[in-house]
């Protein structure tokens, strides 16, 4: 097991470097001068050259990348142009809110998805299966930002039950686990949960159907095992694949939260990314994307290791 973990970690190193390279190059595919946001419009040629040298933009690209990577390894992702604060601190503060949202959504989406998937797979080709499958298809097809708007219209505008935007009373930034704060989490979490719900339902349904049609299930039933016992075998066999899918979905929720956070003004990493894009705050843009992508890479690594821990066949392969 340890050898497997070591091997997986070694595989991750080139990926991490390439991810950093993509994030680094992002700033260089932007049209125009990367200094345009810091440079006054009437800046002289000399001032522009001075600033370019100060930011290191006058050096060759590979050297710039090397220096940037070295600083990034020391936790220095530069300063935000808009606020002047260190990028890393800004991003980490926002990521906390995104993690809260993603975990709440994962609890809703995965529970619903596993339940619906197991039921649909067990009662295949019946009306129960059709209803569950329809839910799943609607979940993966709905533009989630629109669903967020519709939920706000119903529960905030018309019924006035839940707040429409923000993450706490009076725009407070500090999160707390009480109803005053939790009520702000309900609508964004439900909205975020529909895609993972749909995907987990489809995966678990397919897995359950496949496992139930295998010979060993027949054998279990033949030896007189009751259905709950059979079910335990189904869950055990479906777990590694289902776990991998859920891990990936958790990563998508963390990285793809920008649309939902924009709809609900949820102060997470997506919201930060949105303001970075529109203020042309390139260091912040670069840093947010780098951190979110690294989260995703390490989540994938954890999923691989967890999968190998459950299913010994993977290690050998």
């Amino acid at each position: 097991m340890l050898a497997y973990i070591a091997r997986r970690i070694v595989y991750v190193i080139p990926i991490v470097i390439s991810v950093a390279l993509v994030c680094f190059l992002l700033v260089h595919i932007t049209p125009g001068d990367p200094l345009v946001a810091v440079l006054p419009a009437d800046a002289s040629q000399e001032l522009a050259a001075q600033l370019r040298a100060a930011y290191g933009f006058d050096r060759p690209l590979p050297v710039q990348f090397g220096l940037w990577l070295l600083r990034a390894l020391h936790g220095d992702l530069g300063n935000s142009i808009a606020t002047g604060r260190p990028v890393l601190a800004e991003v980490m503060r926002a990521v906390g809110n995104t993690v809260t949202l993603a975990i709440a959504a994962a609890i809703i989406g995965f529970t619903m998805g596993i339940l619906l998937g197991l039921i649909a797979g067990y009662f295949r080709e019946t009306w129960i299966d059709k209803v569950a499958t329809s839910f799943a298809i609607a979940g993966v097809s709905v533009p989630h930002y629109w669903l967020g708007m519709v939920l706000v219209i119903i529960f905030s505008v018309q019924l006035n039950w839940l707040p429409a935007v923000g993450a706490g009373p009076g725009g407070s930034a500090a999160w707390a686990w009480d109803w005053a704060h939790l009520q702000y989490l309900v609508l964004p979490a439900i909205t975020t949960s529909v895609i993972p719900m749909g995907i987990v339902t489809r995966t678990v349904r397919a897995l359950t159907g496949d496992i139930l049609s295998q010979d060993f299930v027949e054998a279990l039933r033949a030896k007189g095992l009751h259905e709950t016992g059979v079910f335990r075998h189904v869950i055990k066999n479906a777990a590694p694949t289902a776990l991998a899918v859920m891990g990936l979905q958790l990563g998508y929720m963390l990285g793809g939260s920008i649309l939902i956070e924009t709809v609900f003004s949820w102060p997470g990493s997506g919201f930060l990314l949105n303001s970075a894009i529109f203020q042309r705050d390139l260091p912040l843009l670069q840093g947010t994307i780098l951190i979110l992508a690294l989260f995703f890479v390490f989540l994938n690594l954890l999923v691989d290791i967890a999968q190998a821990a459950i299913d010994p066949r993977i290690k050998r392969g």
Partner: protein
Amino acid sequence: MSELPLSVTADAALQAAPATKARGYWATVGRRITRDKVSMACALVLLLIFLSAILAPWLGLEDPYKGSMIRRLRHIGTVGYPLGTDELGRDMLARLIYGGRLSLVIGILPVILAFCIGTSLGLVAGYVGGKLNTAIMRTIDVFYAFPSVLLAIAISGALGAGILNSIVSLTVVFVPQITRVAESVTTGVRNMDFVDAARASGAGPFTIMRVHILGNVLGSIFVYATSLISVSMILAAGLSFLGLGTKPPEPEWGLMLNTLRTAIYVNPWVAALPGAMIFAVSICFNLLSDGLRSAMDIRN
């Protein structure tokens, strides 16, 4: 005794073969999908949306750009404005129908482009193998390290707002996914006997890829690509919703949803209409793709 029955059975098999194979693979797939009610209903809805978008100027609709300050945010069912008016007093029905033009193009074009690029890359990687395969597939892996929404927004955000940029960024998101599928099906086919036979009879690598492999892998890649259209529609409209795609006053569903967002306290259901269009197109493409997949899975 030894020779005659054998040739008789062989003859019988030869004669029986055309009878069972009278219908080709694609004809069978076509017949199966036309019998699937859900797929046909979705195809019909999509056809209606496509036709109305193409024929919009000849449908006798209001001008989708002409606003009026005195008839802003009318409700659904107002006389003369069956679906109400938007925040600038423009007719919603006309804007929704005209909006289909841009929305469908920016949603579907990235998948078509990615299908062409990804299939070529995957085919070459899968057929040539070796170092070229490693180079292509490891580069693809880098893009897999980003969640797709994040990658699309990162590229769009860096390139800046615009229709072309949003199409480019979505194409970049889908190329790796299609390449992976194309590579894996090509690898599955390349060592089959008929490819060896073609190579032995002197066919060059391009001929083999074009004639012998493409025909066998295109179906699976195509079905996979159709399943991406739904995601692409949602993401393309999402980029416009964030202000990274279409620019006002162009009618486009994602952008309309964004500009109408301020109106949810005044006229909520009019504000929600453009999203319903995105949902309809996206779910129809998803169901149609599912139908196509099961129609092509003849073994079942």
